[in-house]
Each structure stands twice: as C-alpha cells, then as structure tokens.
C-alpha cells in the first residue's frame, strides 16, 4: 500500500530556506519532506512513513505550518542574541578546563 503524501507551500519572500529546512527536520519521525523552490514559493512535499488517517494528515500539516512560523521567530531571536549568547558561553566555559590545548 502507498503511504500518504501532502504538499505545503510557503511564500519564499517571507521565509528563508534555513527556516523551512529546520522545521521539516523536526518532522523526520513522521515523514520525509522534499523541499524545492518553485518561483516565489517553497514547495514542501511530505511523504508519510506510515499509513495515516486524513484528519491526522491534516493535523500534521497544520503543525508544520505553525512550526515554520515558530522557526522564523527563532531565527529572529538567534540573530538578535547571537553575540550575547557567545559572550555568556565564553564566560561560562572559561573555568571548566574543557578547552583543548592544541
């Protein structure tokens, strides 16, 4: 029996490839997701790994849409806080002796 599939699209001017890829990765236990750029859109083709009811497919696709929006917010946080994060980590690890002396 064929496993179910679904296609979801996103406006490529609003979402980066990184955002879409990261969101898709979190669904790896349920589906393989093929991501392609088609004109102004990202086209994400889901191939589910197991048979699923239509309502479950619908729910998974909806969760994926939310995950893409969340991932986009995460990218913004990461971009704004990158420097702070690195300086805090440098302080925190400075006395652990974990750094390797080459």
């Amino acid at each position, binding site marked *: 029996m064929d496993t179910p599939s679904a296609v979801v699209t996103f406006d490529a001017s609003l979402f980066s490839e990184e955002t879409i890829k990261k969101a898709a990765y979190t669904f790896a236990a349920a589906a393989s997701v093929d991501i392609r750029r088609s004109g102004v859109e990202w086209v994400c083709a889901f191939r589910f790994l197991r048979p699923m009811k239509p309502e479950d497919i619908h729910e998974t696709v909806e969760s994926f849409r939310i995950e893409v929006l969340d991932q986009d*917010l995460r990218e913004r946080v990461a971009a704004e806080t990158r420097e702070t994060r690195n300086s805090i980590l440098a302080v925190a690890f400075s006395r652990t002796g974990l750094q390797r002396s080459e």
Partner: protein
Amino acid sequence: MSKFRPLAAFDQSGAAPYTLLPFRFTRLDRDRYVASNMAGEYAVLDRTTVEALVKHQLASDTNAYRDLASRHFLIDADSSVGRDLLALKVRTRLSRLSEFTGLHIFVVTLRCEHSCPYCQVSRQSMDTEAFDMTLNTANRALDLVFRSPAPHLKIEFQGGESLLNFPLIRHIIVRAKKINAAQGDRPLQFVIATNLALIDDEMLAFAKEHDILISTSLDGPADLHNCNRPRPGRDSYERTIAGIEKARRVLGHDRVGALMTTTKESLRQPRAIIDEYIRQGFDSIFLRPLSPYGFAVKTKSYAAYDVSSWLAFYFKGLSYIIELNRQGQRFVESYAAIILSKILTPFSSGYVDLGSPAGIGIGAVVYNYNGAVYASDEARMLAEMHDETFKLGDVHTASYEDIFLSDRLLDPLEESVALSVPMCSDCAFEPYCGADPVFHHATQGDYVGRKPTSAFCQRNMAIFRHLIRLMEDDPEVRLIFRSWASRG
C-alpha cells in the same frame, strides 16, 4: 513562578525599547509554549505573547513584560545588570564541569551467581583468574582516581556480583583511605553495588567501620523480581529482602538504597512495584528505562517494548506517587527529582545520562576488571558487545593524561554538546536535557544522533512536557515537585 499569560497581559500601545536575551521556545501543548533562557529559567506563554516578545511589541507596563525581564528574557534601560547576572547563573549551572570525574566505578569481578537475562556483563564462571580484578590492576586504577581534581570522590564497586571479590574491595578501601589522608583528605565515599545474596556479618562489620553505602537491586514484588533475576534456588527476592534488613540493622536504615530494572514484565505493574518499595521502607524509587546495551539487545528484551509503552508505565507510576504524596505519604520518583532540580533550582545535576556536555568521563569513569578504562557504565556494556568506541585506555599502559585528554573522550564530548546539535539548539528543554553520545552511538551509529527519531529525545521530551504541565496545572503538584527538586 511561571503562569499562563493571557492575550490581555500585554498592550502593544505601550511597547518599550528592549533587547532580547538568548532564549528558546518549544510547544508545550496545543495552546501553550515553554520558553527557557540559558540559565534554565522558564516561563509558560501563549503564542501571541511569544510573537509579541520577539517582535518587540511587548508593553513595559504589563506583568508579562516584568516577569520576562526579571527572568532574563529581555533587558531594557532599567535592567542593565541582566546580562551579567545571566552569565553568572549559566556559570553556576555549568560548575559541574569543573568538578571533573567524581565517580569512579571499579568492576571488581564479572562473576555472578545470578543469570539475569537482561544482564550484559556477568559470567557464571567460577574462574577467578579470568574474571576478577587483580591487586595490581586495582592499585593502578587507584593511582588514577587520586589524580582526579574533583573536590569530592566516590568509589563504587560493581560486578558481576561485587561481593564475590570482597577481599579486593577491602584492599581498595583501605588503600584509598591511606592515599586520601596523605593527599589532604578530600570527602571520599564508598558504595558497594550488590544483590546482597552473599552478604555476611564480616562484610557488614567492615562496611560499618568504613561508612560504606549499599546499593542493591529490587525489581518489585517477589514474582516479578524472581522472574527477572533467576538464580539457583529461585530465591533472589527472599535473599535480597533478608539482606536489606540485615544491612539496615548494622549500617542504619538510610545507608541502604535500591535500584530497579524495568523489563517487559514490569510494564504492567507500576503500582505493585511502587507498593513493594514502600513496603520495604524506601522513600524513593527510580523508575528506570531498560538499557539498550548488551544482552538486552541480543535477547530482544530492548525491542520488546517501545518508548511509548515505557512512557505509559512511567506516567502511571508517577501519577500514583503524586497521589500518595497528596495523601501525606512522602515518596519521591528519582528521575523526576533529577529533572525537577534542573528546572526549579540553579544547580546542575551530576546525573551522567542528563549531562551536556555529556557526563561520560566527566561525571563518571569505569575501571573494568581487566584494566580497561571506559567513559561510563554503558560504555563498558557496549564493549561487551565488542564495540570498544568508548574505551579510553588501560590502567596498565596509559597515563592520566592519555585517558582524560584522549580524542576518544573529547571528540564525543565536543560533538554532542546539546547547545549546538540540530533540534536541541532550538529546544526549550535543552537546559534540562543531556547529550548521551553512548546511547546515540549504540542506537543510531553516531555520537550526536538524529533527535527527531531518537528514543532518548522522545522519552525525555515527553517527560519534560509532562512534568511542566503537571506543575502549571496544579499548585499542589508544584509544591510536591519543589520538595522533590531539593533532593534531586
């Protein structure tokens, strides 16, 4: 502490200039998110609040804003020390790392009179020469123990059945104390892991004299325990219970602890297992998952049930324990307590499986009976399956530096730091989670693993969500969990 923030909690008209501090967020359930900062402080928010926060639209005169500012999710002109304070808190959490290798496990023999089907390491052989640690090996290992810069040292004896080589345990303890005294007397603790079937008065008198803790195995009521732990006479349970009583009489009630192993048979009876622990006077239980190593894999007892059936068992057990606490019985589930101490206190746990960087080599190190040194107990079990990936060296040929600065230890440590692993790097539960490169190597073939399909990730994420939901939804559970956290 954290509360669900309704939409009305902020007013975009009064949006203030603020800078975000690093934080991550993950869905808790349909409507709520968990956000956590680098120090592990968390807040439960709805999506609208998360979005407003990230887009700098959160109004400064709202409770949500004040809460998030006080918990270091953002800084503004009024909170200029926020960044430094956060750095300090992160450092406190990571302080475990500078306490390099406090737990040293000596496998004094592989021999055992039990034949438990899930045990990876034991041998029925009575050939002491082949499977016992020698005096020379023990002395070399002790030299390494005392090179550790850890402020506290713990030496644990394991087997096989460790008491089958009691003369060596005696030697190691006496010698360790002598070396320690000459070095300035660091706190030094000893634990004997034993099934207690062989314990006698002489051993107990020695244990009393040297303040030794006993850690035994109790899998549940007699039927279950004896089915899990076959031995000649089929009396493992009876011997364990008699041993616990005897050891408590001599050493004191609190000097005897017990650990359970979860098998397929256990999954149907979480309540009976917990009741057995209570009946035997224990005030906690560690509801453990079955390890994926060794015979457990070979005999298919690992594949026999999946993560979701273990989780069902765990949640059923946890809910029963919470019910007991509500009725006034103080009883703790230890895995939850370890996680809760990470969530609710600024201290990081020394628990090896939930360390990031991984606890291997740092939290614990294992000296096998033949002198091989492994990065953790699981690493030694993996070696029993002919996978020596985490063998760090040999006490007879390697120096301290060879072992603890070897690529075999540092590579998996560096690669698996959860902060930088795909999916973990975005996960709000990362400050409470671990890396466990040995597990991922054993189950997925690399140190990091693919987290979306990792049983480790699936199990822990479900537990983090469950514990946080329980606390958020019921103030009484929050109080109970706070008291557990102080023990974790």
